[in-house]
């Protein structure tokens, strides 16, 4: 009977080979007896503990020395791991895909959340830069007309230094008689240069004197503009260029890579009146600053809140609901680094990895079970437990490593593509802090995830199959039969996996179906006959000191002339304008409709909005089916008329004529409701908005060229509109020096740009769910294979005693049915629970989907049993009994 503590034996089991284990334990036991004779109990145990560690160290040293003599065993493990990947292609493909998705998604999420929450700015002390926003707590919208507040903050704030402000403008830059080039311009305070601590390449940056109204107009050029338009000439400083309609002197050039505040190419001073501004006076601006040494984001926020409350006391009408926010620059993190941020960054990744590992782990566990004879032989030949465990770990690492490589490559390209697509519509382009593709740190993080994944996959089955209690069984295990069994954990994991697949199937099928229907609907619309032009003017006339009215008048004049010239072109049939064209991403707000006077209005959670100009519906062949079209009177500023589509009438008016009914936008502040609008007409559904299925409730407002923002021109052509696109720049030449064409594309191309992410998203979801289905099938197959393998002798015995083939099959299929049925039931119950909690989906809506997905899952589960069942039927009673 041994006296050694249990941990001693466990430790030595881990390091010593079975051949050495007994005599090493015997030595320790003997030493322990001596210690007990000579010392008190506690001291004896301590001495034995020391000796155990000493012995374990000696064993490891001896093994390392041996492995050096015999050559590297690790290399052998990797070779064996590679052979295993090739030997079990099903597991390699299914498990590898699951891990590739988990690691790819995890790495992408880690990269993305870091950029979104708290990006790492490539500037000296970039982690101390903050962005200050003002939010209207009543509407939930950002209030950017905060020049008044900015002047106050800059004067009084102590904890935020170098406060600055900017706004983005698109300006035409002209040198001599060259064609004007639109350039993303930052109209900014000089502090943009002091805060970033980046010295100019040539000349000087903007300085405080440039901000004074009336100061001579100056510009600082970005590196790319300097290289491209000025061919990198050193004498550019002091030259006069035309910026929009203003002659401006170049005072400096910034070095390559400098693009603060976002992705700006040139910088002009934001002129701020020292006397200040009235509340909400002036244009929309963005405010930035640097935290004072020792100050935290929370302290800066508290100080700005106090200053804002003071402003609210002085001006309650404009500031009652305004609240400042201090964000990490470029990010969305509203506070200092916290555990919550850590959790948001890491927890979803670990969850995805855990789900994938549970799935793949089932397969690896089953494979390990089929290799018991091999493991037993190796143990009998003197391999230690650590040796076997490390080999199985290396095999899992090979699988996870290959999967991680695939996952990371896909994630890298997906992120690159995603960033390019997301920012393609933004005038400022990709912000300078956004890294296109995965960062090196993310790859290191993913490597860590891979090792964790491999440890979960490889170590658990390896430790179980080589545990001391299993070794006698292993040694007696022959070529057939298995000592491993799927215990509670793996069975629960399998049921969970089936349930998860059942839960994900209906939404995935729904999304795929919807994407397909969208595609069909959108194909019916002749988008290939339209050209979309995004038109704007340089904002010189809408500056901090200019007049808004004159800018609107100028905009109208320019548009009218542009329209006239367009219509004179051959092939152009009609021209209209709006803030978006059919097929472009819609604006969505919540609204209310007054069905019956004096009865509380009905809430519309998602009201899709579009602002439309003259002849909009006519241009796009959208007939007015009730009431009337907009006329010029509806475009007046105080007009309160709207039109809706048929889907609106179907969904909220029960098909009744809505003309004369009132609607308004919803607001969080009941004391300040939005004004009512009267419905004057109904148009047919277009079915061109992604995911609307032709059923989205639309609200159309009337706008003119002066008020549409952005101003998007739609041109209907008789032939291919792409032929007209190159002509557009010629048409606008000489029209106005400040005119800008931000986007000239066929509507078809724009629609495709919206479609592609949607189709890819639907495809990705379908792939993941199909993979889940495959993994479930593979898991059930593995489980049943192991079960048949374990029961070889029992099945043989039953066959010898006269059990029919039907009874043997029933035994296998009934167990699979119970397992899959449990998973299906659990999944259905969870799904029904969520449906019962939802206001928008009724149980009857999903009952068919539930039935179909449950049937699919059951069929897949039972099909997975076919091969194990065939194996069971091939068992010869005589051979099975001989082995028994």
């Amino acid at each position, binding site marked *: 009977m041994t006296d050694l503590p249990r941990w001693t034996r466990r430790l030595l089991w881990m390091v010593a080979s079975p051949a050495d284990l007994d005599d*090493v334990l015997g030595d320790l*036991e003997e030493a322990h007896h001596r210690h007990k004779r000579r010392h008190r109990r506690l001291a004896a145990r301590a001495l034995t503990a020391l000796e155990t560690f000493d012995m374990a160290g000696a064993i490891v040293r001896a093994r390392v*020395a041996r492995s050096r003599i015999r050559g590297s065993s690790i290399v052998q493990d990797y070779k064996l791991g590679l052979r295993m990947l090739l030997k079990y292609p099903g597991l390699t493909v299914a498990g590898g895909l699951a891990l590739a998705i988990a690691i790819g998604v995890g790495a992408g999420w880690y990269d993305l959340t870091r950029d979104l929450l708290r990006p790492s700015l490539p500037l000296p002390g970039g982690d101390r830069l903050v962005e200050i926003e003002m939010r209207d707590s009543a509407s939930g919208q950002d209030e950017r007309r905060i020049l008044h507040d900015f002047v106050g903050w800059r004067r009084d704030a102590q904890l935020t230094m170098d406060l600055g402000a900017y706004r983005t403008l698109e300006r035409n830059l002209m040198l001599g008689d060259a064609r004007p080039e639109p350039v993303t311009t930052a109209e900014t305070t000089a502090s943009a240069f002091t805060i970033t601590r980046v010295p100019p390449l040539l000349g000087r940056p903007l300085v405080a004197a440039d901000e004074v109204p009336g100061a001579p107009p100056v510009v600082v050029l970005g590196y790319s503009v300097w290289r491209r338009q000025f061919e990198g000439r050193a004498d550019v400083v002091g030259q006069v260029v035309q910026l929009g309609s203003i002659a401006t002197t170049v005072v400096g050039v910034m070095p390559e890579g400098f693009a603060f505040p976002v992705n700006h190419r040139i910088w002009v001073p934001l002129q701020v009146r020292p006397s200040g501004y009235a509340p909400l006076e002036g244009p929309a601006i963005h405010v930035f600053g640097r935290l004072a040494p020792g100050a935290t984001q929370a302290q800066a926020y508290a100080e700005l809140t106090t200053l804002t409350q003071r402003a609210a006391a002085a001006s309650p009408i404009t500031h009652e609901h305004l609240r400042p926010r201090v964000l990490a620059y470029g990010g969305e993190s509203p506070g200092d680094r916290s555990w919550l941020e850590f959790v948001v960054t890491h927890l979803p990744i670990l969850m995805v990895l855990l789900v994938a590992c549970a799935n793949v782990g089932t397969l690896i566990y089953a494979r390990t079970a089929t290799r018991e004879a091999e493991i037993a032989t190796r143990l009998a030949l003197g391999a230690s437990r650590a040796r076997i465990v490390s080999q199985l770990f290396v095999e899992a690492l090979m699988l996870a490593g290959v999967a991680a490589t695939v996952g990371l490559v896909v994630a890298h390209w997906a992120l690159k593509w995603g960033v390019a697509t997301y920012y393609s519509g933004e005038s400022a382009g990709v912000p300078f802090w956004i890294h296109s593709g995965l960062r090196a740190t993310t790859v290191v993080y993913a490597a860590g995830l891979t090792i964790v994944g491999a440890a979960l996959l490889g170590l658990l089955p390896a430790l179980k199959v080589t545990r001391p209690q299993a070794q006698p069984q292993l040694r007696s295990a022959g070529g057939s039969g298995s000592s491993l069994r799927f215990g509670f954990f793996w069975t629960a994991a399998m049921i969970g996996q089936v349930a998860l697949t059942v839960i994900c199937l209906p939404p995935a099928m729904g999304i795929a179906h919807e994407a397909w229907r969208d595609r069909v609907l959108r194909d019916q619309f002749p988008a290939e006959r339209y050209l979309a032009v995004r038109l704007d003017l340089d904002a010189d006339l809408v500056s901090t000191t200019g007049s808004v009215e004159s800018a609107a008048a100028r905009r109208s004049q320019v548009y009218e002339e542009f329209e006239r010239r367009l219509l004179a072109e051959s092939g152009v049939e009609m021209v209209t304008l709006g803030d978006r064209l059919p097929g472009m991403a819609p604006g969505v707000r919540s609204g209310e409709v007054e069905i019956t006077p004096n009865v509380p209005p009905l809430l519309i959670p998602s009201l899709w909005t579009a602002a439309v100009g003259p002849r909009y519906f006519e241009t796009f062949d959208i007939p007015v089916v009730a009431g009337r079209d907009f006329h010029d009177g509806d475009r007046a500023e105080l007009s309160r008329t709207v039109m809706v589509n048929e889907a609106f009438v179907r969904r909220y008016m029960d098909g009744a004529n809505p003309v004369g009914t009132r609607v308004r936008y919803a607001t969080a502040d009941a004391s300040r409701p939005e004004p009512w609008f009267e419905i004057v007409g109904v148009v047919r559904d277009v079915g061109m908005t992604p995911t609307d299925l032709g059923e989205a409730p639309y609200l159309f407002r009337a706008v003119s060229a002066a008020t549409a923002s952005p101003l998007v021109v739609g041109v209907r052509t008789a032939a291919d509109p792409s032929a007209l696109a190159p002509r557009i720049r010629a048409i606008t030449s000489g029209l106005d020096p400040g005119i800008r064409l931000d986007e000239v594309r066929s509507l078809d191309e724009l629609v495709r740009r919206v479609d592609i992410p949607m189709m890819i998203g639907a495809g990705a979801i379908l792939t993941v769910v199909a993979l889940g289905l495959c993994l479930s099938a593979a898991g059930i197959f593995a489980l049943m294979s192991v079960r048949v393998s374990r029961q070889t002798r029992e099945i043989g015995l039953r066959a010898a005693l006269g059990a029919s083939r039907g009874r043997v099959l029933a035994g296998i299929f009934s167990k699979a049915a119970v397992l899959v049925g449990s998973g299906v039931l659990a999944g259905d119950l969870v799904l029904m629970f969520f449906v019962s909690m939802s206001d928008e989906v009724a149980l009857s809506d999903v009952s068919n989907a539930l039935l179909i997905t449950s049937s699919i899952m059951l069929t897949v589960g039972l099909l997975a049993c076919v091969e194990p069942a065939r194996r069971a039927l091939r068992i010869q009673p005589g051979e099975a009994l001989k082995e028994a």
Partner: protein
Amino acid sequence: MADKRAPAPLAEFELLVMLAALRLGPDEAYTVSIADDIHHHTGRGVRRANVYTTLQRLEAKELVSTRLGDARAERGGKPRRLVTVRPSGLAAVRASTSAIQAMVGALGKVLGGTT
């Protein structure tokens, strides 16, 4: 030119282990008894782990061989791994001790007649 078949020289502790194994004989030499024997004759504290490592090394050099003995109650029913010095081991011991004796012999006066 050195003789390729000459036994590899033994380190000091290896020599002590070999000598103890020879003294105890193939039926009594194992890790614990070898450690005790060295301690008894030299008075120096010996870690059993070091004896284990040394025996592993000597076995790898094919100077000793080991076999499992019978189970013993004081060892918790575990067997002893008994050590037998192989002829090559004996040759190595002889070579090492001869070298030491040759070196010491010339220093008799200095060392006070240890030989």
